[in-house]
């Protein structure tokens, strides 16, 4: 089928993505093999894998990767379990379901920066309501944003608050596609809700679960806004994430080659994760379908 008009349709979008998203990547790939600084301006010098080797040998880089993975792992796990539970509850025709459905979507649409600002206010040690609540139930005043473990907890909490709605939305859409006949049959055999969940609902929603978790993990790895406002990576570098680290290197130290190398390492981490994740889960998925 030869229809030249199809190129009129696709080329504008294709060109924009090529020029703005793809082509600059070539450039930054080249820069990642160079030693290049803006301040003080040093002419670029080819250093091969020097930047990469440097980064991998750095204690700070390893700690940043660890912190980011920890945040991603904890927040996505909680998001998935909580989001799935709430989706099930909403699907089961709970009272005031309409109100809940609309409200539960809200956090997702807010600017992460605004959310983090509000969270800073809520977690504040003297004027914040969360600490007052904890004092009320007899706990000491907690250093949410100034002590490493509590600060990580606060960041994870904010992530869970903002992105559980995404899991709710997707799982709810998945639940609506399930055929009701299977459940009727299960009811006839007196299967308990618990058995029905593990025997029918969970396996049937496995493909969408895999997709949801995948999207959330990829997105969470990019985390910057929340950390930027909430802790700025501190105390020390205990809550610094990959994106924040790259930003600091590039725009505080103007070490461009380094930052480019870092962002490509980041890309490799994401791709590795994706490949491993899909490879591990493919057998389970194929068996089901």
């Amino acid at each position: 089928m030869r229809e030249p008009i199809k190129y009129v349709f696709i080329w504008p979008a294709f060109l924009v993505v090529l020029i703005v998203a793809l082509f600059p990547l070539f450039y930054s790939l080249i820069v990642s093999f160079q030693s290049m600084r803006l301040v003080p301006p040093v002419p670029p010098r080819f250093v091969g894998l020097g930047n990469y080797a440097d980064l991998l040998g750095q204690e700070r880089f390893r700690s940043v990767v660890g912190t980011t993975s920890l945040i991603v792992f904890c927040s996505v796990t909680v998001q998935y379990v909580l989001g799935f539970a709430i989706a099930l509850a909403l699907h089961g025709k709970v009272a005031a379901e309409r109100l809940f459905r609309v409200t539960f979507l809200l956090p997702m649409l807010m600017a992460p920066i605004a959310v983090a600002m509000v969270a800073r206010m809520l977690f504040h040690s003297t004027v914040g309501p969360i600490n007052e609540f904890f004092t009320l139930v007899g706990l000491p005043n907690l250093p949410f944003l100034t002590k490493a473990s509590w600060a990580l907890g606060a960041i994870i909490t904010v992530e869970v608050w903002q992105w559980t709605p995404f899991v709710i939305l997707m799982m709810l859409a998945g639940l609506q596609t399930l055929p009701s006949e299977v459940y009727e049959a299960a009811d006839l055999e007196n299967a308990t809700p618990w058995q029905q969940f593990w025997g029918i609902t969970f396996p049937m929603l496995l493909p969408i679960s895999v997709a949801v978790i995948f999207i959330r993990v990829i997105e969470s790895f990019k985390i910057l806004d929340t950390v930027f406002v909430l802790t700025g990576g501190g105390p020390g570098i205990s809550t610094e994430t990959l994106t924040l680290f790259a930003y600091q290197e590039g725009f505080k130290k103007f070490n461009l080659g380094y930052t480019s190398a870092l962002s490509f390492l980041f890309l490799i981490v994401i791709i590795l994760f994706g490949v491993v994740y899909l490879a591990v889960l493919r057998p389970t998925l194929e068996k089901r379908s």
Partner: protein
Amino acid sequence: MNRHRGSRAVTFALCAIWFVVTIFPFYWTFVTSFKPPTAVNGGPTYLPFIDFEPTVKAYVDAWSGSRGDFFTPFLNSTLIGISATVLAVLLGSMAAYALVRFQFRVRLLAGAAFAAIGIGGFLLFQELGLSRAQAMGVSFLLALPTSVLLNGLRLPGPVLGNNDVVFWFVSQRMFPPIVTAFALYLLYSELGKEGLKALDTYWGMTLCYTSFSLPIVVWLMRDFFQALPVEIEEAALVDDVPRLRIFFEIVLPMARPGLIATSMITLGFVWNEFLFALLLTTSNWQTLPIILSGQNSYRGDEWWAISVAAMVSITPMLVLAFFLARLMRSGLALGAIK
């Protein structure tokens, strides 16, 4: 049946608790924006008129600009948001339509040639004495036609179809944004050295957001177009109506719910975006999230003022959420999620 009622109560409790957790930060921000300083610094206060006397002073301050200009970033966010959304949805729908109704074949070798000529040409032309931006431009202009030509030849190697093209579009979105944002910063600053100012400009930001919204638009709109019946278009084709007219006069109106939902999602993304704005703007075209993030260092923590700033950023999205929810309820946007 007693157990049934028990589980009902549990699910309701779960929803109710999550409802409170979700709503409380909104309530807190809203209330705090009306607090006088004394009601903030003395410890948490909760209820207006009982705990404290509400005041609109923080709003007046924000409006008069005594705490930094809010109006310009608001306008910037709106302008950039709307133009990027319109562009992305227009170009993205066209591409999505093409990917649904036509067959595309892209040879992997042609793609590889594009990358090879792009990178090699850039290095070569720089050696020949061209500036970085010039070398980039020339190698791009060389790489593109060559790879298009190569694609027309019968080359060996795998051939990619429509699904792969869609995947290519969507995969742009999976990249860590710092990779592309940083690369774009380098490109824009090189362009600046050639006299074409791209950093901190309206068109620079619009172009950048258009490009990064396109993957989502292509992905969502493809689902909507796939759901449309092909017969009407075929009837129009028999009558020799040109494709472009079919698209704009028949297909787009039919896909209106999808267009609205996609536009709202895109607008939300651009409105809330922080990293690109942080890297690519400095003063003139700063957007709301940038101003917002600067609030905590600006004159210390004046929470009432920060709350006003947050309200300014949140409110348009609340309105948007309301409309999106209405769309969802009528079931129109469900196809996009599936």
